[in-house]
């Protein structure tokens, strides 16, 4: 990658522009002195950020979404990993049908899942709606994605590494921690990220399964009735972008300051 940039590198940059281009308009218009996000730009203002900070219910819904997203991504991956190991590592009678069943949430329209789960939670389980019920619904939606990513990672490796570990006297748990988990690491990270995105962005199931606490998408959808609130939400979107970018760069720097030795299988 040193020397003259390859065609692929140029493509990657173009790809990133496609990905970030539209999104970067959010910070632009969040600083624009107008209620409307249209060109030409009117002038610089930070008032939309002030209105964002004053909007406590929006900030609260952001917090709720973050908490639910993290719990969902960790739980779904924790459930998905052993299942993916089972389906790729063991000769299972009925493995095919089990896998198909796990992919089912993809096919069912979310409105159907949402309404059905709602009735079940309220009428049969007699539970109250809360962020917990939203989380449960999201875990269900995440499992197919988590499984796909993890299985395509695990399918590549032969069993001999794990067998060697066991032959060396490690028990199953230590084999998992020392061999399987590092091998699965890229898949695990992808699964965590995908599940977080899905939960953080999901509207239909979240709307039906939440009680009086809102997630961010539920809140944003309800705000559409009020055009004047739009710049405030753009400000929030920009703040999220900036916050996550800082987080990522900081984490990368920390990692470099920390462990220098790269283990095989590490990212």
């Amino acid at each position: 990658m040193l020397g003259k940039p390859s065609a692929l590198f140029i493509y990657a940059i173009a790809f990133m522009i496609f990905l970030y281009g539209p999104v970067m308009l959010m910070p632009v218009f969040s600083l624009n002195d107008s209620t409307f996000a249209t060109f030409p730009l009117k002038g610089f203002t930070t008032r939309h950020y002030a209105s964002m900070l004053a909007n406590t219910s929006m900030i609260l819904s952001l917090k709720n979404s973050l908490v639910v997203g993290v719990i969902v991504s960790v739980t779904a991956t924790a459930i998905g990993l052993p299942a993916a190991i089972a389906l790729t590592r063991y000769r299972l009678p009925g493995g095919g049908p089990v896998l198909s069943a796990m992919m089912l949430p993809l096919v069912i329209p979310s409105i159907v899942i949402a309404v059905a789960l709602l009735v079940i939670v309220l009428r049969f389980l007699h539970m109250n709606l809360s962020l917990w019920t939203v989380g449960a619904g999201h875990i269900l939606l995440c499992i197919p994605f988590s499984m796909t990513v993890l299985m395509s990672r695990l399918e590549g490796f032969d069993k001999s590494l794990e067998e060697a570990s066991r032959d060396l006297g490690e028990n199953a748990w230590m084999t998992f921690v020392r061999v399987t988990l590092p091998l699965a690491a890229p898949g695990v990270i992808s699964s965590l990220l995908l599940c977080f995105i899905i939960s953080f962005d999901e509207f239909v199931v979240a709307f039906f399964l939440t009680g009086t606490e809102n997630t961010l998408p539920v809140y944003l959808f309800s705000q559409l009735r009020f055009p004047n609130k739009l710049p405030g939400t753009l400000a929030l979107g920009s703040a999220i972008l900036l916050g996550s970018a800082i987080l990522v760069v900081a984490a990368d720097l920390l990692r470099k300051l920390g462990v220098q030795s790269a283990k095989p299988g590490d990212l």
Partner: protein
Amino acid sequence: MKRIQFIDRMAQGKMSRRQMLSQAGAFGVGLLSLPKLSAAAEVLTCMEWGGYDVAEYFQSYVDKHGAAPNFSIFSGEEDALAKVRAGFAADVMHPCNYSVGRFVSAKLAVEIDTSKLSNWKDIFPALQTADGVLVDGKVMMAPADWGNSSIAYRTDLVDDDFKKNESWGIFFDDKYAGKVSMLDNELLILIGAMVGGMPYDEAYKLTGAALTEAAKTWGEKGVKNSRFLWTDASELQQAMASGEVVAAYAWNDVVKNLTREGIPVTYAKPKEGYFTWFCGLTLLNTGKADPALAYDFIDAWLSPETGKTLIEGSGYGHANIKSFEAANPDDVKAMGILDPVEHMKSAILFKTPTDAVQNEQNKVWGELKALKQ
């Protein structure tokens, strides 16, 4: 935090199995007892439009009870209705006139005892007896916020012909094809029928062959000519600000907001008439809180103080006549209202057809959009 420690220790294998079981058990119990705690407090639960869950709309309730009620916010009444029908325990809901009937038919709404509402006497008489406030002669909704539906248009971008002769016909005029925007609602068909000469009192209950005919003659054309069928006011406001759409079905707030930004927009008084919609508070029988709390909340919404906030803040009207005296006269004028009582009389109040007709109209509208080529 505890949960993370738990997972962390489990991952490190530092936890004995017994420890783990007891921890997991505690976690499970915590999970189960969590909802019960909130139920025990019996706080009022309201189903509310997002954005209306702010204390300034029900200040007297907060003053009296020291805290705001719990809110479950929604963005469409159908969604909210489905949620309550499934068993969600809400005490109060904020529907609009056209959907109250559905809450009544679903046996979820309870009659409101207006003698318990101190502000009821100041409600516009036309609203006190409007279709939707009264269902089968019983008060099923306390009207709170109202607004108009008419054509908002860019004075710099439409022809003088239209300005001299404002008409809903603009939605079916090929000259404006791709430059108008209608609300995503079956009302388009009814408006078409009105352009064709049918009075609203007949058009609102169109059904059967006449409905299909109107959908074919007017609906198809209207859908084709619309740049998009809008579902949220933000979308519409953006399009009008940029000039992409020059005329649209719009509520008062759009005109107010665009004018404030210096965009030349005016609100038409079409010859076929303009509409008034209204929303309000409905008591639900699914709630768990003391009904007295619900009455306090509804009464707070009907107060002139709330009306003042609503008029000045959003550009919508309020059901309490006194609100218009309390509000800043400039804001009232910006809504295009000179005399509120007179204004209320001259507009067409939306009516609700029977459930069967409503469903049929929904279906025809859904299919009309689906089959657009």
